[in-house]
């Protein structure tokens, strides 16, 4: 059961001032939506979504926010870090026509998902949102995939002006008028973004990638459970289907910090 692996960083790509992609030569065999726990045995251990995973390479894309991520940003190619996983649930691979709504550092996981959806013959439309141009992520990488991409920034400095939810709303309305609905919607980004998106998705199946404070990542410490179902986001999540999200009274309201204390959004 022990799936810790200690790997050299094979490649580091600078995506923005605060975001880097770290790649590792290792056959992780992960599925889109899953995450790893990453540590260097010094700075702590944190969860990161898998932003790409081929037969022999996988990547994560990290935003520098606080202590751990700043510490990680010091690492160079060739340095060791240690991971465990891949953990958690993964995205349903839908057929037909799907919409991906992403925001911030949570967008890159859609790179991995888009690749798998494409292989599956699914028609993918991605709304790739960020606050501003400098924070906008992966636009080149997505271009290479042959999917439909709508870039958006809150301030209009890159792509359309507006939030990804604004764009999603327009598209979903258009579609409804055309009678050509999306078969499935995926969202990954700030919880309040998904909260805003949710009311638009009454008539379509969806999955959200959620985040909660994770410690053990193997379902025993209980830090990542969501009320009132007691869903352990590290095991039953991080990808949750509509049916479950709808029951989560804490969704968009509060989360728990490292002590388990509720923190309001």
């Amino acid at each position, binding site marked *: *059961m022990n799936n810790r692996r200690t790997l050299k960083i094979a490649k580091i790509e600078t995506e923005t001032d605060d975001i880097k992609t770290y790649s590792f030569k290792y056959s992780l065999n992960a599925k889109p939506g899953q995450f790893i726990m990453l540590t260097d045995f010094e700075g702590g251990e944190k969860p990161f979504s898998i932003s790409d995973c081929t037969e022999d390479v996988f990547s994560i894309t990290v935003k520098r926010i606080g202590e751990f991520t700043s510490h990680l940003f010091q690492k160079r190619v060739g340095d060791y870090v240690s991971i465990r996983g891949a953990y958690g649930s993964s995205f349903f691979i839908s057929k037909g026509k799907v919409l991906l709504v992403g925001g911030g550092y949570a967008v890159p996981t859609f790179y991995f998902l888009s690749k798998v959806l494409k292989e599956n013959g699914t028609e993918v439309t991605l709304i790739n949102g960020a606050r501003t141009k400098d924070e906008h992520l992966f636009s080149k990488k997505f271009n290479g995939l042959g999917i439909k991409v709508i870039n958006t920034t809150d301030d209009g400095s890159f792509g359309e002006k507006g939030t990804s939810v604004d764009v999603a709303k327009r598209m979903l309305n258009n579609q409804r008028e055309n009678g050509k609905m999306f078969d499935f919607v995926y969202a990954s980004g700030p919880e309040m973004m998904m909260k805003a998106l949710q009311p638009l998705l009454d008539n379509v199946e969806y999955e959200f990638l959620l985040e909660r404070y994770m*410690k053990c990542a193997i379902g025993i*410490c*209980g830090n990542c*459970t969501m*009320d009132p179902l007691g869903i352990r986001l590290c095991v039953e999540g991080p990808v949750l289907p509509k049916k479950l999200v709808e029951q989560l009274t804490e969704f968009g309201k509060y989360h728990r910090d490292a002590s*388990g204390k509720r923190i309001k959004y």
Partner: protein
Amino acid sequence: MRKRLKTKFLGIEVNSPLVLPAGIMDMSFSGLSVSAKNGAGVVTSKSLTLEPRMGHKGPVVAEFASGLLNAMGLCNPGIMDGLTEINQFKERSDTPVIVSVFATNTDDFSELTKHVNKSRGDFLELNLSCPNVFDEFGIPLAASKDEVFKIVKTVKEISRLPIIVKLSPNVYDIVEIALAAEKAGADVLCLINTVGPGMLINTKMVKPVLFNKFGGLSGPCIKPVALKLIYQTYSAVNIPIIGMGGVTIGEDAIEMIMAGATLVGVGTAVYYRGVEVFNKINDEIIEFMNKSNYDSLEDIPKLEKLNE
């Protein structure tokens, strides 16, 4: 069938002898409810302290061949928020709750007890035995019979709830500690907490795997140690025992009961067998009872007591 697993524990009806122990999937009311729904007869809160604690940095757990090492560092939202979670759980469930509390001195335990008195908890558990905060607090209180006596006596005088004392396996003579707790008025003993602690090393990076370096052992590797201590304690005291440590399958639970346990904790096995582990073990206990023609839990025989 499941009816045969019903039993009375200090006068309170429980549906299964299986207990969710402190620290396992119990940071929130909803976490507690998962185990209750999946067949735990009693659930325990995370050990609560007066103030919130963020716990140790990660890695906080390490898997190895025969169990887990953990050094959570007693993370918890503090007694006030913790009791809120417990009350919310009790609004939704009849399952008895043990409120576990941790402190390092009698005064703090007293204060915690006063808070717990006002909650909807069913039992108060004094965690005298966390091995993962050594740097901060030193050798667990459970190592000293005098400390154990003092704390339990003080708490007993003010507690509205029956008192469970959680003991450490890492002592020379469990019997003297257990007797001290009993004499001071403990209603139940709970053992064992994690063993060791131990350490694992990442050989590529030449670093301890746990951020805290050391962590307590739980899971299959500690079962023999648990059985021995439970049996010694059972032989010496007259109060019931909640036995735990490595229980993973029904047969393990039966061993605990034969060693002297009345209820049986199932912690790390949640990792091995999922949250369904309680119902799985319940079924396995029933299967054993059928094969051996035991009608009720009380029919399961105990080992002959050790003669001291």
